[in-house]
């Protein structure tokens, strides 16, 4: 992997991050505010599903889906990152250990 790829990727990523954050106050900001408020609840669950779909490949696909769905339940009830992580990883390891 070349330095060009890393540096170009880094600069492009920074440009995307900085576009709206560093620029001045856009004229449409007041109109967009109610929509921007819905942004976290839209993009983060979709991102979670996207990453989950990407991570559920290979021979243990069902184990990962089972652990993932269990984690969704824990996250919904507890709203705790730590509990979600612990239950998700432990359940995946248990399923692997049991050979399911």
């Amino acid at each position, binding site marked *: *992997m*070349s330095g*060009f*790829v*890393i*540096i*170009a*990727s*880094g600069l*492009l*990523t*920074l440009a*995307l*991050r*900085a*576009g*709206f*954050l*560093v620029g001045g*106050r856009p004229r449409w*900001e007041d109109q967009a505010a*109610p*929509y*921007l*408020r*819905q*942004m*976290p*609840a*839209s*993009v*983060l*669950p*979709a*991102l*979670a*599903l*996207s*990453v*989950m*779909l*990407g*991570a559920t490949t290979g021979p*243990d696909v069902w184990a990962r889906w089972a*652990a*993932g769905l269990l*984690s*969704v339940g824990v*996250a919904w009830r507890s*709203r*705790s*990152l*730590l509990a*979600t*992580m612990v239950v*998700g*990883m432990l359940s*995946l*390891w248990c399923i*692997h250990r049991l050979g399911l």
Partner: protein
Amino acid sequence: MSAPDGFVGGMRASAAVSLSALPFAMAVGVLAADGGATVAGALAMSVVMFAGAAQLAVLGLAKSGAPELLIVGVVGCINLRFSMYGAAVAPFVRHISRARRLGLAYLLTDQAFAVASARFADPSPAQRPASFFAGAALSLWVAWQIGTVTGAALGAQLPASLSLDFAAPLVFIALARLSIRTRADVYSAVSACATLGVLHWLPYGLALLPATAVGVLTGRALAGPPSTEGAA
């Protein structure tokens, strides 16, 4: 009592998220070492890019021999969502200098956005929101670099049975839950996920953009006036 604000408040708010980013970062480090990168090379990549999903894509594509310009283009597609995050965070940090905003932009990640937006959505307005964001994001940055170096240094010594890569979806599942506070948020989340499920065949995670748009529009359309929104 309201949540602590300022730089230290941000660090405290992101402590659990930062810890949970470690296994994800280690998985990136392991993959980098597997692709022939030195520890210094893996660290340089993490410092310059600081974007987990894009780093995974770069490593995978480079290993498969993809053209360099294609790899950079894929990074752009994957990281397009950061533009949306920037637009959502901008109103809270507009009072600080452009140089400092550029620094915050460099630190803008999914996790930092989730922590900050949860605080900014709190009924008691955040004091010193830019400092809060900086504290949260910098904690994540430090954890990310430590995780990458550890993963690259240990490399193949970490057994594949640990399934460290599975930490990434777990982090995002928990962060997604934290973003859902009202009935409108539930509408947004369900419609965004349904759209993503339908369009998942699009390459390079591009389905995330239309899914977000549908989620935002649905949430606004079905929410009604703010006073009628129920808690989720």
